[in-house]
């Protein structure tokens, strides 16, 4: 059905671009892995699977599956309520703040969560006041699940909301005219719109939970709660056994791929409706009961996500900012963090656009080669998250040991690794939107003879301005909170905000660390404000 949307030359170019992007990401992973295997191994590889490995593998998949199920289950009604209440007071701020957990280093998030749910947390202190009971302990699986839902519910809700808001205005209008009930609207309009982003979000959340490390250890309560990522880290760090680390990473990738494949099989079909006027005025959502329920859902979701953030804010405010802001190291760290984050985000978006265009062009005439490009492009866009950054970092480091004294090599490595980690997020934000744009403007562009470069520049990109900004902000927030890649290089000229934060934390300076966490959070919110700066104009258009 896409034949009419791209010229043959464009389809060919898109295919080449996709192959190039896949090769780029593939090399970005294969080269460091090969380097580690060839240069870093002095012992024969240990491919054994013992009882311990078997147990942590089961635990990894089990906690990830539960976390994903809970995140998606709660995100669906929340996204629906947010979609039904486009004029909910403070809605835009709720959505902006929903992006903050993404940019918080796990340690900061854990401390925030514990201020609410911990033994000395808000809830336990309140229960203690009222009932005088011993604290309810969340350490164990429940703590892991709360933390993962905190991180992933907002992400999933945002992705699904985008799906709902892409539905044509006419659908809601007709639903209202026909007097459809809430359930009918959900079944006929909302679920089809939510199913695909839900499946996409589920895959993403599952991968994020599989690779979760710090949160699982802190909240898991003991070595009974250990993920594969911990074993990978241990193999590379304490045992310095790169082949073992890679073997564990391979297990992680293969098993997660299988799980994702399963998800794909039960996931929703692609909707490719001809989009009409897009808007989110919801003439159908007027019932009083439904309205109250929406408000309760939004309030509950917001409270769950914002309480730990509020705790972070409160402890951050106790920091001595008058001293903190005069530290030159702070400003340098902010500049470095933003520079790395922006570069990584832009690189990630470029690769994502190439992959998406290739996938769009692929089903043109489904030859084996094109199908392969389609599948590979899809896999590249998601599985890259499963490659442990510490493995990639170590490999690149090993390879570039000659060029270390220059700043550029480590910088490039950090940017590349962050860009790859952001790729699955960027893909999810952009893919459906880009397909919609190509579907909508494709024929028109062709009939006007606007093709190739001109079309990308004048038609596609301007129409994608909003999702592009959202993708940029998401990807930047993600790399802002990342410590993984930089810890390995240990170059104080490349100190980022999380690096500074961990440094303070590691030398008793907890209030400084809290202040830095607050700065990090504010940066994330600022990014989100910039990302959806345009709601005023879209609202104008709607009226």
């Amino acid at each position, binding site marked *: 059905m896409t034949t009419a949307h791209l010229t043959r030359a464009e389809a060919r170019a898109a295919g080449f671009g996709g192959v190039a992007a896949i090769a780029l990401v593939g090399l970005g992973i294969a080269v460091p892995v090969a380097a580690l295997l060839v240069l870093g191994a002095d012992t024969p590889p240990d491919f054994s699977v013992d009882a311990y490995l078997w147990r942590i593998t089961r635990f990894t998949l089990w906690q990830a599956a539960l976390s994903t199920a809970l995140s998606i289950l709660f995100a669906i009604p929340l996204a629906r309520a947010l979609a039904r209440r486009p004029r909910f007071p403070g809605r835009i701020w709720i959505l902006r703040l929903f992006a903050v957990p993404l940019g918080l280093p796990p340690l900061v998030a854990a401390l925030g969560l514990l201020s609410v749910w911990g033994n000395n947390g808000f809830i336990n202190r309140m229960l203690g006041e009222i009932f005088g009971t011993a604290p309810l302990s969340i350490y164990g699986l429940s703590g892991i699940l709360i933390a993962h839902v905190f991180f992933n519910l907002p992400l999933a809700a945002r992705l699904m909301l985008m799906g709902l808001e892409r539905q044509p205005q006419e659908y809601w209008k007709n639903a209202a005219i026909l007097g459809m009930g809430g359930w009918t609207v959900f079944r006929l309009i909302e679920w089809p719109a939510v199913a695909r982003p839900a499946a996409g979000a589920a895959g993403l959340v599952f991968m994020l939970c599989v690779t979760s490390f710090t949160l699982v250890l802190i909240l898991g309560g003991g070595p009974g709660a250990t993920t594969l990522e911990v074993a990978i880290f241990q193999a590379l760090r304490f045992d310095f056994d790169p082949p073992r680390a890679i073997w564990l990473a391979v297990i992680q990738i293969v098993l997660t791929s299988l799980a994702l494949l399963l998800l794909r099989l039960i996931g929703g079909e692609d909707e490719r409706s001809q989009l009409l006027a897009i808007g989110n005025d919801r003439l159908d959502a007027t019932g009083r009961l439904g309205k109250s329920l929406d408000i309760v859902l939004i309030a509950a979701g917001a409270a769950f996500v914002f309480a730990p953030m509020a705790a972070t804010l409160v402890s951050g405010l106790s920091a001595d900012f008058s001293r903190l802001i005069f530290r030159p190291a702070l400003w340098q760290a902010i500049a470095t963090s933003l520079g790395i984050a922006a570069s990584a985000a832009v690189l990630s978006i470029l690769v994502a656009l190439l992959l998406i265009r290739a996938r769009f062009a692929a089903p043109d005439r489904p030859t084996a080669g094109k199908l392969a490009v389609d599948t590979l492009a899809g896999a590249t866009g998601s599985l890259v998250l499963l490659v442990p950054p510490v493995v990639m970092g170590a490999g690149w480091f090993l390879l570039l040991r000659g060029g270390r004294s220059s700043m550029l090599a480590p910088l490039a490595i950090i940017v590349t690794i962050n860009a790859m980690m952001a790729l699955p997020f960027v893909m999810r934000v952009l893919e459906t939107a880009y397909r919609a744009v190509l579907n909508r403007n494709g024929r028109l562009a062709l009939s006007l003879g606007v093709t190739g470069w001109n079309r990308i520049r004048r038609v596609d990109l301007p129409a994608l301005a909003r999702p592009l900004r959202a993708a940029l902000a998401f990807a930047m927030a993600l790399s802002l909170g990342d410590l993984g890649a930089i810890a390995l290089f240990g170059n104080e*000229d490349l100190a980022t905000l999380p690096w500074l934060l961990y440094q303070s934390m590691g030398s008793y300076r907890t209030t400084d660390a809290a202040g830095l966490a607050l700065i990090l959070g504010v940066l994330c919110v600022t990014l989100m404000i910039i990302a959806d700066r345009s709601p005023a104009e879209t609202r104008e258009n709607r009226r």
Partner: protein
Amino acid sequence: MRFRTFFASLALPLAATVSLTSVAAQAAGKTLTVYTYESFIAEWGPGPLVKEAFEKECDCTLNWVGVEDGVALLNRVKLEGDSAEAGVVLGLDTNLVAEAKATGLFEPHDIDTAAVDVPGGFSDDTFVPFDYGYFAVVYDTQTIDTPPASLKELVEGDPAQKIVIEDPRTSTPGLGLLLWMKTVYGDGAADAWEKLNDRILTVTPGWSEAYGLFTNGEAPMVLSYTTSPAYHMVAEDSDRYQAASFSEGHYMQIEVAGILKTAPEKDLAREFMAFMTSPAFQDAIPTHNWMLPAAAIDMELPEAFDKLVVPETSLLFPPEDVADNRKAWIDEWIAAMSR
């Protein structure tokens, strides 16, 4: 977003980052690069003071490169092999010494170590101690009146009173507690761990997480160092957090430095190692690294240091024993803790 701006936005931040962070070429003369862990060279750490003092007498430039911690330090040396730019590696602990030697990347230091004075005496032809500390259970005096007086009391005490510990698979303090339990309980360590497990709130990946949970009030005890209370007394003027003295003795951590075979300026590296055992270096240790000096100091220690726990017995396994048994002991720990 216009396309040109799109490309510009790729190039600009990268260029800006490079130019903002690049350091001007150092002045002429000899240069010594020292790899260490990052908290050593934080602006409040001993690094800046040591740099200033050493450069005053060496007519050279001292460059610090900081990585995450001691373990990351050894990994960096392994990853770089014979192409390291550093002359000296400072910040490995005794548990890593055997493994570090086995890499064959270090060479004998050949300096006079008469000034070095650590309990139990540590002497080695390759590594020289620069500071040391004792692991200890630090507790919150607002919650606990009578802290455990021995490791045995910790193991057998009230399970409702929790402690946060670090994971021996990912952190040095975690490994420290594992070895501590092993020195005291020997073959009975697994049973002791199983018992202690009831008191353990959670096991964190590193010291920062554990200490953060402790100061947030999640648990009244944490595995840290005897010197931790000194920080709170000196820097925060608070004696709320104190270390418990254990009758069996405390497990030690001795931090050492060594010279790399590939050091570009060997004499300068040796000069630095000798300087390390002098008061000019050691003075920076107590109130900047919050560890105990491994040689004489030439300064008045803050009063708080007189109040610290001084263990009667210092416990320490020979480095070779740790290297040989670490994997087996960690496996034993996992099994006992997962029961």
